[in-house]
């Protein structure tokens, strides 16, 4: 069976409106991918960046999949939350990215968005907190209908991927146009 190793790091987030942010992340795959080792969901540290730099999460990734087919390639999905001085958490963005299919080192920047409520909700969230959240979080990474959703863009998540692919050549799967 072909094997896929996803190594790398969720480096951090930048350009988010609030500063003290953390990230809940998870990996979603199709049925062809079977987890062998590794952790596929978690939550990062809360970072308070010094001055206006990017918030550093430095969350290492090391996941090992066995693949029966190449459809349903893994995706990484994120929820960015901010934490205030009273340890209250508030949503800051949703986003997802595909795990790249080219072996080696790839840096991915994942832009994030947030649902925008009605004007009344926006005024109330400005004063008391509590931005509108998604009821069904799977729409972040599933290709269903998102047309009715009004959103605003928030920040960018930086992810470093390192992919190691084993035995794919044996089944004739190619990941670049170079001659093998």
């Amino acid at each position: 069976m072909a094997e896929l190793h996803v190594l790398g790091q969720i480096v951090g987030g930048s350009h988010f409106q609030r500063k003290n942010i953390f990230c809940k992340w998870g990996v979603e795959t199709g049925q062809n991918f079977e987890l062998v080792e590794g952790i596929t969901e978690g939550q990062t540290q809360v970072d308070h960046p010094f001055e206006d730099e990017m918030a550093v999460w430095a969350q290492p990734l090391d996941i090992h999949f066995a693949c029966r087919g190449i459809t349903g390639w893994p995706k990484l999905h994120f929820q960015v939350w901010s934490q205030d001085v009273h340890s209250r958490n508030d949503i800051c963005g949703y986003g997802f990215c595909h795990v790249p299919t080219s072996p080696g080192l790839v840096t991915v920047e994942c832009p994030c968005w947030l649902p925008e409520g009605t004007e009344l909700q926006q005024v109330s969230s400005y004063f008391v907190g509590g931005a509108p959240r998604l009821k069904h979080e799977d729409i972040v990474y599933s290709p269903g209908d998102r047309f009715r959703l009004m959103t605003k863009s928030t920040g960018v998540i930086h992810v470093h991927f390192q992919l190691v692919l084993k035995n794919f050549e044996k089944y004739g799967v190619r990941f670049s146009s170079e001659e093998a």
Partner: protein
Amino acid sequence: MAERDEEPTAFSVVVNGQIELAEIQGSKSGYCKFLVTHGEDWQVLDGLEEGVTHLSKRAPGVDTSFVWNFPINVAYRSTNIFGWPQVVLSVYDVDNLGRDVILGYGSAHIPSAPGTYNLKIRLYKPLASSLLQHLTSWISRVQPEFVDPKFPTQTEGREVVRAQSSGHAIVTVNVMTRVSGHNLFACGVTRGL
């Protein structure tokens, strides 16, 4: 490729590199303890997995970096990619009483494809988790640290950490890989043979 893949393929990874420098705002000097961690299926063939650099003061002027230029040479052998080595840096300063003060932790995977890389590792330090600890650390001038220096390489348990990031370190690494037997890995483990 007549053989089935029941037989695990052994490969070796040779890492030659150096910890070049760090830039941390508000710090005048620092030294770096480094560790290279690896998973269960990995064994060290040669070299040292940990070390401590000298205490470096930054030069007067606009350049805010302190230079270590410290070599890392380690070679591994493994049959499983899982647990690929990660380098952990812990940057400390020495205060007026001769105590070590943490300036930042950082970690990164060693690149999995052969080649020369310049890694920029962002640094962060943990903050006190309660107001009382914050107060005692302010009075005693002792900063909170991770009990386990390998903690930055772990995926679990990160949600309880409150950290402050500042600065970065630059590490240059040269990675060579060697696969004995078959050409089964696409990544780089096979390329560059």
